[in-house]
């Protein structure tokens, strides 16, 4: 198996014994698919091999609060905590407040500047996407987070520019 096929953390922990297990086995298509499935699982469910123990009843109230906070900002990952939920909420609220302040601070123009209006209308969305780092994307590799957040923000920026262009006189 290609060592790059699994996340580095998984590879460091299980790589040697995994290779020791498959080395003497005759290759079959079924085994190949199983290994690919395992690699996909390791990439898509990183929290599955790094989760803390299951919560006890005593921790239930905190978990409920954390879930409520996470749902209000950006979904949640298995490892997100209350502090993460607050950070995510801070990004959304912060970007919204900054957008509103900038909107009031900028000189008004008759009919509004189309590009400016488009960016200010979507300002909170940029904060929302960044907040996912603390909630929905928590536990994913940094590179995956960067690609996801960068990609979504890029698409968002293109759509915003397109909206400004469509509204331009």
């Amino acid at each position: 198996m290609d060592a790059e096929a699994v996340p580095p953390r998984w590879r460091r922990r299980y790589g040697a014994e995994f290779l020791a297990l498959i080395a003497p086995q005759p290759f079959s298509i079924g085994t190949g698919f199983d290994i690919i499935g395992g690699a996909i699982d390791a990439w898509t469910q990183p929290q599955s091999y790094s989760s803390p123990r299951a919560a006890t009843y005593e921790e239930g109230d905190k978990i409920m609060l954390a879930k409520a906070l996470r749902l209000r900002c950006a979904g949640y990952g298995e490892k997100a905590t209350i502090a993460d939920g607050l950070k995510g909420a801070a990004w959304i609220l912060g970007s919204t407040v900054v957008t509103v302040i900038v909107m009031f601070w900028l000189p008004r123009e008759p009919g509004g500047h189309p590009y400016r209006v488009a960016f200010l209308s979507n300002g909170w969305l940029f904060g929302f996407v960044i907040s996912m780092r603390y909630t929905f994307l928590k536990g994913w590799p940094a590179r995956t987070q960067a690609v996801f957040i960068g990609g979504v923000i890029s698409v968002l920026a293109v759509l915003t520019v397109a909206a400004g262009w469509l509204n331009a006189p």
Partner: protein
Amino acid sequence: MNRRDQSVDLDEFGRFAEPALLILISLADGPKHGYAVTEDIAAFADVRFGPGTLYAAIARLEARGLIGALDADDRRNPYELTTRGEKALRARLASIQAVARVGQKRLASA
């Protein structure tokens, strides 16, 4: 620890719940490394898990503290059942036994 959060541990494994249960049963009579677990499960359950499935389940069990790794033997890590894993296994087997008893009772009276 109560019975509910023991059973939740395996329930949250999704499609890896059955492999996880069989791994716990395999480790119930002593530590084993991955290959020995595979062979043991094949012997007592007539199921042979692929390496991807096996290690996905092992990783989940270890992350939740149901099994623990011992010192590496060559490149192979033996795993042992933890106290938490033993309790979770007992709870799950009791649950399975209760369901089986109901099924057998109903079949007997049918």
